[in-house]
């Protein structure tokens, strides 16, 4: 258990660069996303994570470190988080990471977080490209941290973090002692826009790059080779089939009922 005071509160926020959600995505020869061919942005939910970290920092003091794993253009996303106000960045970059699945990614991230003395690790609850929502839990497991996922509010008091965990029926109030890992949902806050001052200040902030060797991870634990799952085949989404138009000539209701029963909805 750690008592948090303003001098030491250290938050690591994990952010991911993803293709712009409306962009046409293509797969490379190895069935992984061709990240070079699309406009890349910070995963929207991670903006909420950064904002939450900054708010906690504003309330309690301390330090916010933004951590991202990805190819070279990922620096844009790190820059954005630094422009919003994070203090420094860590860029995990290595060709060997290409094609890492969730399990492999969680290993690299956990290794990168380990030893930084984080009181709190904050994630967005999912990325818009993979939508698995499992990486935060896996990282927590690897680091042996309590996980408070799907949070719609986060507060820290002394050595305790308390969150509202969104459920089907509303939310549960859950708490854990620090250090802990939290993932946040949309609408937890309103992420700030990088201001002119923030953008200029970010220029001088430090971004550390770490490769696999630096993490102490061997190439066969990550990347395509080290992943537990593999994409064997991929096909383009079939074009939307034309819908059936029912003209109501008095028997419209019956036609709809027939359709629904044929689809086994009723």
């Amino acid at each position: 258990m750690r008592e948090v005071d303003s001098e030491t509160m250290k938050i690591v926020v994990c952010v991911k660069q993803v293709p712009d959600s409306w962009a046409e995505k293509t797969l490379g020869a190895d069935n992984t996303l061709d990240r070079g061919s699309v406009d890349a942005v910070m995963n929207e939910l991670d903006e909420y994570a950064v904002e939450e970290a900054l708010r906690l920092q504003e309330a309690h003091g301390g330090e916010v470190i933004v951590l991202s794993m990805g190819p070279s253009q990922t620096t844009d996303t790190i820059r954005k988080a630094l422009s919003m106000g994070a203090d420094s960045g860590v860029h995990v970059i290595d060709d060997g990471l290409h094609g890492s699945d969730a399990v492999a990614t969680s290993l690299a991230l956990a290794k990168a977080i380990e030893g930084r003395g984080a009181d709190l690790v904050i994630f967005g609850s999912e990325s818009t490209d993979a939508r698995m929502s499992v990486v935060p839990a896996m990282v927590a497991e690897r680091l042996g941290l309590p996980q408070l996922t799907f949070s719609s509010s986060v507060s820290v008091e002394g050595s305790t973090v308390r969150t509202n965990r969104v459920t089907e029926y509303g939310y549960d109030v859950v708490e854990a002692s620090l250090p802990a890992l939290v993932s946040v949902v949309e609408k937890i806050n309103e992420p700030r826009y990088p201001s002119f001052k923030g953008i200029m200040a970010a220029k001088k902030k430090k971004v550390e790059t770490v490769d696999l060797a630096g993490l102490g991870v061997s190439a066969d634990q990550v990347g395509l080779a080290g992943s537990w799952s593999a994409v064997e085949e991929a096909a383009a989404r079939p074009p939307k089939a034309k819908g059936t138009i029912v003209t109501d000539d008095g028997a419209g209701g019956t036609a709809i009922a027939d359709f629904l029963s044929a689809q086994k909805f009723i």
Partner: protein
Amino acid sequence: MRFTEEQELFRTTVREFVDKEINPHADAWEAAGIFPAHELFPRLGELGLLGLEYDPRWGGQGADHTWTLVYGEEFGRCAASGVAMAVSVQTDMATPSLHRFGSDELKERYLVPAVRGDMVAAIAVTEPDAGSDVAGLRTRAVRDGDEWVVNGSKLYITNGTQADWLCLLARTSDDGGHRGMSQIVVPTDVDGFSVSRKLDKLGQRSSDTAELSFVDVRVPVANTIGEIGRGFQQQMAQFQNERLIAAYMAIGNLQLALDRTITYVQERQAFGRSLGDNQWIQFKLAELVAEVDLTRQYCYACAEAITSGADPLTVTKMASIAKLKTGRLSREVADWCIQFHGGIGYMEETWTARYFRDSRLLSIGGGADEVMLRIIAMLAGIGKA
């Protein structure tokens, strides 16, 4: 022109702010004939947008003019041009003189809150009997001890119903013509000041435009911006900022309008193919793409002239050309956008209708095309019109 990484990030900030914080309200504000400047401006102030080029001592960002170009291009994409225009009044029409020539006390009192977005500013030059011919203005400030006593009226004043202070151009001596005018900061909570009426307009409807009346309005002589009697010259310098920001905003809007129209003609089917498969439409749009690109590059050249410290006459000529050309091109593009949209383009529910009305202003406001031509003729040595 090459923009820095920081400028590109700033571009994204402005674009996202406009998309998420302004555009969703555009229809409502257009219908209301006004937007809430006192709510919006503080948020822009926080982003550093209201004083990009101003000295940090007065809350500004100390950035060079290229940043104004980026802000202008992006804000120009706003779904309600009226809001963009109102913001540009605050940043580049009502405050540059105060920043350039104002006393420290005056800047502390009026510029600092304007840069923060806590005060809304307006520029009050035009009068019922003096628009293009600024030298003909009649609003008069007569000195009484330490005070000016102002009488007169101003017309078509943007932000007029919600401004906290005006940068007023008034006659302060009987010299006549260009001489004997001064720029005076007039707070709007003084006795004798009133909004005579809010004006109903063809376009830019989200922006409030007003006629203002001054009856024995008393303001300290210390509210004079710069030198007494140099108001006309100071205003002519301020007009250059006004014309440039108007041109930059037009460029952003022109590009957006063309992009949207190109998408539309590719989707719309007629005679068994898309509209965009017709060579006439392709060539017409290609022509406009070329014009917009040329004009954009000219605007970039204007920005570079300013950052590299070009002399005032060069800046005046370039700003006049940029304003003239963007004004004309906006009219032409808006017309073709409607044409290639057909009936739906004429409908109020389509963006084209508002753009058609809004874009018409650029050839009139901030000096009509003919006034730009007068200046260009003079500076090009063609003659004095």
